């Protein structure tokens, strides 16, 4: 049962980030515009973020999808989500009415900072959940191994 929830949460998180990365890679310039709308970085730095962030998102998502290097990938995803949340909070505090630019940069549907922040909180919960379940499963695996060894003796 624990294993089922682990894989469910892991795959959900993986797909969110693979999708988010892939869709932003398609139009780096438009994504740079979304980053610029946050008015947090100097002009050209927006391009630097737009040119690198989608690939890190995609890669971390793929690692989770493959169930390989799960905790490093979770750390990367958790750190990114924290940065997103900080940026969104600053948007809310400054009262900017911008699209969060979380997913499709070309899409017309605007997602407000408040909704995006709630979504990021849900992602953080998933990150912690996957990490915790992973640790529990590994512990149980180790105990089973010990038991097996004792039987052999």
């Amino acid at each position, binding site marked *: 049962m624990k294993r089922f929830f682990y894989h469910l949460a892991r795959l959900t998180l993986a797909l969110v980030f693979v999708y988010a990365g892939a869709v932003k890679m398609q139009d780096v310039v438009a994504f740079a515009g979304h980053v610029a709308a946050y008015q947090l970085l100097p*002009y050209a730095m927006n*391009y630097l973020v737009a040119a690198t962030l989608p690939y890190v998102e995609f890669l971390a998502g793929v690692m989770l999808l493959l169930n390989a290097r799960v905790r490093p990938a979770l750390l990367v995803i958790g750190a990114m989500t924290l940065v997103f949340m900080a940026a969104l909070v600053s948007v809310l505090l400054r009262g900017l009415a911008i699209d969060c630019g979380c997913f499709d940069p070309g899409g017309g549907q605007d997602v407000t900072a408040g909704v995006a922040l709630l979504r990021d909180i849900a992602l953080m919960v998933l990150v912690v959940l996957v990490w915790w379940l992973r640790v529990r499963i590994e512990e149980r695996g180790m105990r089973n191994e010990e038991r097996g060894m004792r039987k052999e003796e």
Partner: protein
Amino acid sequence: MFNDLKRIGLEACVLIAFGVLVGLSLNHQLLLDAFSGHLVSLPRQIAQESVPIALPIPALIDEVQQVAASGGLIVDARSPEQYAAGHIDGAVSLPLVEIDAALPDFIARIDKNRTLVIYCSGFGCPDSFDLAVRLIESGYTDVRVFEGGYPEWRDAGLPVAGDEQ
């Protein structure tokens, strides 16, 4: 436990470094353009679709200041709302979305030999280019496009005007 965390942290850094490297190598041309201030990324579809008689000349930020100082006119191609919220100081509003209604009045007021610099929201925003093409077609002789647009001007700390200032 501590060694475990160290390893995880290290692997996370490698993961980030790898993603950043891939991103940098795939987008290096765009980044070089952005950091050298040469943002001449004409929207692809426009470059293919129409071949106007003359194309507008791209203008860098210093050139925009020179043109403004020597009697040229800065034209804002964005929507009236965006213009009202904040625009380059001294710019006039000629929104591309209302071009058909606003163009006759603009032609009546502005001499066709005056130097015009068109801008919009930067970042591959096509409106300034489209508007410049329309103005050239209407007979204006010296039309330039400031590709960096309002964001570059504002971030450079140059004078702006509007409600948000």
